[in-house]
């Protein structure tokens, strides 16, 4: 999360983000919808794409499904077991895991991409409709929460 006090020269984007933060703090229970995890393919991180009834009047089904499916794809990319992850694992083992002190793991890189994507979605699609999404990492990857502002 970026700082809560925006720089004066940053213009609209920072002020908008600051507003998003304020609005987030003031949300209460009644305004939240939680999308739970989908474990049908094992323990990999996936969220259910079933459209919740509470959001029916707020957002189009296709937009919601697109967002959740893109998030699922990002997580699948982060957790993919393939050549790059083996290389990372073996390199880490060979350096007695000291390499994690200087290098960012692939998962962390993808998490940054996800955070950027969620912010972008919030600004372009959800805030105009009076909704906000929280990044699942802030909820221990248990839920994607939508709340009304």
């Amino acid at each position, binding site marked *: 999360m970026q700082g809560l006090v925006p720089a004066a020269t940053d213009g609209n984007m920072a002020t908008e983000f600051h507003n998003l933060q304020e609005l987030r703090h*003031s949300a*209460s*229970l009644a305004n939240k919808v*939680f999308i739970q995890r989908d474990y049908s393919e094992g323990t990999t991180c996936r969220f259910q794409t079933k459209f919740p009834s*509470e959001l029916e009047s707020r957002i189009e089904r296709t937009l919601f499904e697109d967002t959740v499916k893109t998030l699922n794809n990002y997580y699948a990319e982060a957790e993919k*077991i393939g050549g790059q992850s083996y290389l990372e*694992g*073996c390199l880490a083992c060979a350096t007695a895991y000291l390499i994690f002190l200087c290098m960012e793991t692939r*998962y962390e890189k993808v998490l940054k991409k996800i955070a950027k994507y969620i912010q972008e979605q919030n600004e372009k699609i959800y805030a105009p409709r009076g909704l906000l999404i929280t990044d699942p990492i802030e909820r221990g990857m248990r839920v994607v929460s939508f709340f009304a502002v």
Partner: protein
Amino acid sequence: MKNCEYQQIDPRALSVLPSSAQNHTEKKAQRPRRKWEVFPGKNRFFCDGRIILARQNGVLPLTLSLIIVTCGLFFAFDCPFLVKHLTVFIPVIGGVLFVFVVLSLLRTSFTDPGILPRATPDEAADVEKQIDTSGSSTYRPPPRTKEILINQQVVKLKYCFTCKTFRPPRTSHCSLCDNCVERFDHHCPWVGNCVGKRNYRFFYSFIISLSFLTSFIFGCVITHITLRTQAGKTIVQAIQESPARYPFLELVVCFFSIWSILGLSGFHTYLVASNLTTNEDIKGSWSSKRGAEDSGNPYTYNSIITNCCATLCGPMPPSLIDRRGFLPHDEAIPAVSASEIELPPFTAKNDAHMVG
């Protein structure tokens, strides 16, 4: 479990009260606090949240001192003799193994094993709302299990009363640390921490390298004593002669630890190859001996190599508990109070659900 008594969460008590927020502002205005300072589990934190340990870590110093003392004796007493009579590579190999063992051990002990943060009150109330849809006024605790399909196999998810959430598959609640840990293997007192998803590979490399180290030291000490006896003395004379006395101590330590460590390494190699956890193996969750149900392990890739690679060389998941993050600043909310913000339309709709 101590916290088994379930307390229902009253959704109406959860709305943010501006007056209480302002009280907190005054108290917390002095210093921004990090999240580890208010962590609810039984863990200890060092270096401002960078290092995490279980509260009871009494045996970790013992493990470390056993390793360091044995290796110290090895380098002090065996190496000079063996370098003279055999090769200079002996202390080099010993040194590399020792460094690897200590680093793996510290990495296992100080890494977050995959602790799941507890559910926020909002989420917990949402879960309750979904379960208790009958709307009866008499309170009853939510059902403890939920069944889901994983790879066409039925798996039961249990509800954790402490963390107030349905545990993901392969997650278990450690009563010693009072946390739910993902892919929970076991709580290791020697390491002073739980072994779970994030530190299983470090634990595995620790026991494998420790097996090599103990076998190596054992072999070197035997060689040392043998070489001394070849100089025309009996074994007893060779041992009594200082400095060969100390290698005998190493021999004893290595002899007793080799059996347990080699056994443990073998057991964990089997677990890695079949993509099981110690917890599942002990409970016999996927054992085909239980009844006529077709219960194989739904997480296995059905190939030893893929299982090993997935468990040990898979991607490194991030820590979910954000130890060093700062607690939300209540003072960061400026003069905007709740009364100025319009009540959003959601409230009306959901109130109707709650009242029924």
